[in-house]
């Protein structure tokens, strides 16, 4: 019996203690007229060996080589120590730290995480995670709307090229509360607030760098929102904050809330999950924050200790009035990210971000030099870039996968018909010069032949 420790004599003595003749009798409160479950469609059990064999065959099918695809999930190096530590049983198999005294490890780690994330965004406070970048944007919007009570409407301006998967996800989350997302079409790839038709937006959302890898004029956008008493939500790739101006310092007063996906911080791409969403904000919004927050306090001896705090925001205390229904979050990924950030440190993170940028710049320059691709937009880009290709993008990406095991970027036609011939490309710090050069050569050859 996998995972069940009972011997038959133990079962006997337990049944005796309970006073029943067999285990079935323990289910005698289930009314007879509820039919008995029928699990015949489920296979017989496999041993671990057989199971791993089965799933290894599956996993093998999906193995690929170099990845030039980003679009919200990035192929970064993860120091071996990160997951060696994060998967230690004491982190991996603990629950949410409800009994603080028995969970100081997780709690102190979360406190450290909050510090790092708030500081990266240059904001006051951060929570201990939401599910992912997409739902995180939804939570950020709900939080902002709750915080901006004086606002006259529930219209949220989504500026230009915010990650379309995030926008769709956020929309699912906020729609039934009467909140409307108004997307302002991008102008040459970026957000131009002057094109916004909403007079008095409640909240403005902008992404930096945006989905196309372009840099938005965040100072101007921040000021524009502030002038309209709208709260500003910044959606960011946390890695880029090592190099780019942090949301808390945008414009005169800075963004109110920062959200995004933590995958670039030590989390494998793993088909998009589990990763984690993060939220940070100005202190004045903290009581509207969803999710767990850890505070530092003292114990009965006056020694430092950590505990979950501001729980009056949360579902288990506040129930229908909670700031969110979130309960289980993405703790383990946060653990990994905290270790990742600790090992990388200021310089490691900065160099990683700048190296990604240089690699992508090199990739773009080499591809442009083939004459078969050119940048689709002219604003400066960071870390990721859209290229318009002279040829069928669908065939290109297909041939790259099938013949060379390479993921050749995201075909933007999938989300925007006007970008049918465009690829969103990215070369992280993991891509070597050789890999990039080989990619450029294949790119050139495939488009030539097609």
């Amino acid at each position: 019996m996998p995972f069940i420790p009972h011997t038959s004599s133990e079962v006997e003595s337990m049944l005796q203690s309970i006073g029943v003749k067999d285990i079935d009798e323990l289910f005698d409160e289930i009314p007879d007229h509820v039919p008995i479950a029928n699990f015949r469609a489920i296979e017989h059990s496999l041993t671990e060996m057989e199971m791993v064999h089965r799933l290894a065959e599956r996993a093998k099918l999906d193995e690929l080589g170099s990845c030039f695809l980003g679009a919200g999930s990035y192929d970064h190096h993860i120091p071996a120590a990160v997951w060696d530590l994060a998967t230690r049983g004491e982190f991996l198999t603990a629950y949410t730290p409800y009994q603080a005294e028995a969970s100081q490890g997780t709690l102190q780690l979360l406190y450290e995480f909050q510090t790092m994330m708030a500081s990266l965004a240059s904001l006051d406070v951060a929570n201990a995670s939401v599910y992912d970048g997409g739902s995180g944007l939804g939570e950020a919007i709900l939080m902002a709307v709750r915080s901006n009570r004086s606002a006259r409407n529930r219209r949220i301006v989504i500026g230009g090229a915010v990650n379309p998967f995030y926008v769709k996800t956020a929309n699912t989350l906020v729609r039934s509360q009467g909140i409307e997302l108004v997307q302002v079409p991008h102008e040459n790839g970026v957000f131009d607030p002057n094109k916004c038709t909403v007079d008095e937006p409640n909240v403005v959302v902008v992404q930096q760098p945006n989905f196309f890898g372009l840099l938005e004029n965040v100072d101007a956008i921040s000021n524009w929102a502030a002038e309209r008493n709208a709260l500003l939500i910044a959606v960011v790739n946390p890695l880029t904050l090592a190099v780019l101006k942090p949301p808390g310092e945008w414009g005169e007063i800075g963004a109110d809330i920062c959200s995004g996906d933590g995958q670039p911080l030590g989390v494998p791409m793993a088909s998009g999950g589990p990763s984690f969403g993060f939220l940070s904000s100005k202190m004045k919004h903290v009581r509207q924050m969803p999710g767990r927050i850890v505070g530092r306090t003292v114990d009965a001896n006056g020694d430092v200790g950590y505990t979950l705090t501001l729980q009056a925001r949360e579902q288990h205390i506040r129930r229908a009035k909670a700031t969110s229904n979130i309960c289980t979050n993405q703790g383990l990924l946060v653990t990994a990210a905290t270790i990742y950030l600790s090992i990388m440190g200021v310089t490691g993170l900065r160099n990683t971000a700048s190296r990604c940028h240089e690699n992508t710049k090199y990739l773009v320059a080499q591809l442009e030099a083939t004459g078969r691709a050119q940048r689709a937009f002219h604003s400066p880009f960071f870390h990721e870039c859209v290229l318009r290709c002279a040829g069928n993008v669908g065939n290109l990406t297909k041939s790259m996968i099938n013949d060379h095991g390479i993921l050749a970027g995201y075909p933007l036609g999938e989300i925007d018909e006007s970008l049918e011939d465009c690829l969103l490309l990215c070369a992280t710090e993991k891509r070597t010069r050789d890999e990039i050069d080989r990619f450029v050569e294949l790119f050139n050859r495939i488009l030539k032949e097609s």
Partner: protein
Amino acid sequence: MPTIPTIFDTSKSGRIAGGQTPTEGDLSGLPNDLLRESKPVLPEVSELQAVRHFTRLSQQNFSIDGNFYPLGSCTMKYNPRGAHRAASQPGFLNRHPLTPAFASQGLLGCFWDLQETLKTVTGMEAVSLVPMAGAQGELAGGLMIRAYHEDCGDYERDEILVPTAAHGTNPATATMCGYKTREIGVAADGDVDIEDLKRVVGPKTAGIMLTNPSTCAVFERRILEIADIVHDAGGLLYYDGANLNAILGKVCPGDMGFDVLHLNLHKTFATPHGGGGPGAGPVAVNSLLQPYLPIPMVGKLDDQFIWLDESYFPLTIGKLAAFMGNAGILIRALAYALMLGREGMVRVAEYATLNANYLAAELSKAGFQLAYPTRRATHEFLITLNQEAKDLGVRALDFAKRLLDFDMHAPTTYFPLLVPECFLIEPTETEAKAVLDEFVSAMCKIREEAQENADFVKQAPHNQVVRRLDEVRAARELDLNWSRIEG
């Protein structure tokens, strides 16, 4: 073990972990006013310092791998390492979420298998794996209920019913779905108060959210009657699957009248809780709600697995995650399902129930008060320490803290609220009889201690890295991140 300085206290400006630091990249050409000037508060430590810090932090955690952890409703059972191994293979770990389906047949095949398994397990028509935890599954469920009523042109239904004992996510979800919550009472035997239900149900009822076994840890015996009442009023039934492990292979939610449900794979399917997550909360529905399922799902076209998106599900409530939810957790759950197989799944319910009933019986014999002494325990059970609190001045909280000193995690305390001074105790099927016996001994010992010296128990824990923490101060004098000045 001493308290550990923060990683920032170990940090020194200018120190780098050189083995991990790529050479700096060229930033020339970027507009200066978009670049960062301030230095973020990140640790500057060596790799060894980081490894040592987090190794030591980890040693200050209770966990399933180290401790009995009978948190009721949370299902802290053994998390098979093999499932973790299976999900950590390069083909899974390195897969970019936007890789086309034709190059992802391995992953999609896994999802297909899991969908099929969960359909059987729940007795429902269709499954979407996307939701990333139980609460998000609830949200998906609520939104599907809403979409269904609106599609029926029924815009008046703006109330969700939940028992007073319900988990906090239930009412919180109702709110997120734009619904009002109406609570219904719980009868003295732990079942829903049917009369109260009849009073509140009506044309404004969008649906009801229930677990079964309920959060009172008993099997809701009149579930079919409840289903009829709610259905007759035009409402739908949502099954909160947090307790599905109690009935696995015994009865299916689909056969108890539920229209929609979520499963907490991190509970019933034993994926690790990770100190707070991640989880996975797939939703299953009957045919009424199938059109509204969150996307994407996996379908089969000829011999190929494909993604089912808006084009197949135009009425979907939409996306709940940027990509496909917690894919890695889904693989772990599949691995677990394969290892349990048909016969193992039934054993989950059987032995979880055996353990709970045995522990309840032993505690009861030892003089502790069961909250519902006339009822069977399910996979968990409730005791109340009200008498001890009155007689000895030692509350459930004090018992909980003192248990830690016995190297056991405390059960869930003060939930559900309607039972005073309660422990919700869920031993799970993976704990041995000897461990349960030790728990009974510890409880008896603590009661003895309390009789001799109540203060000693009230000041527990005594052997942990910290003494009892001041939570009031934590909330009042907010200290939410480290700063150089204080640090």
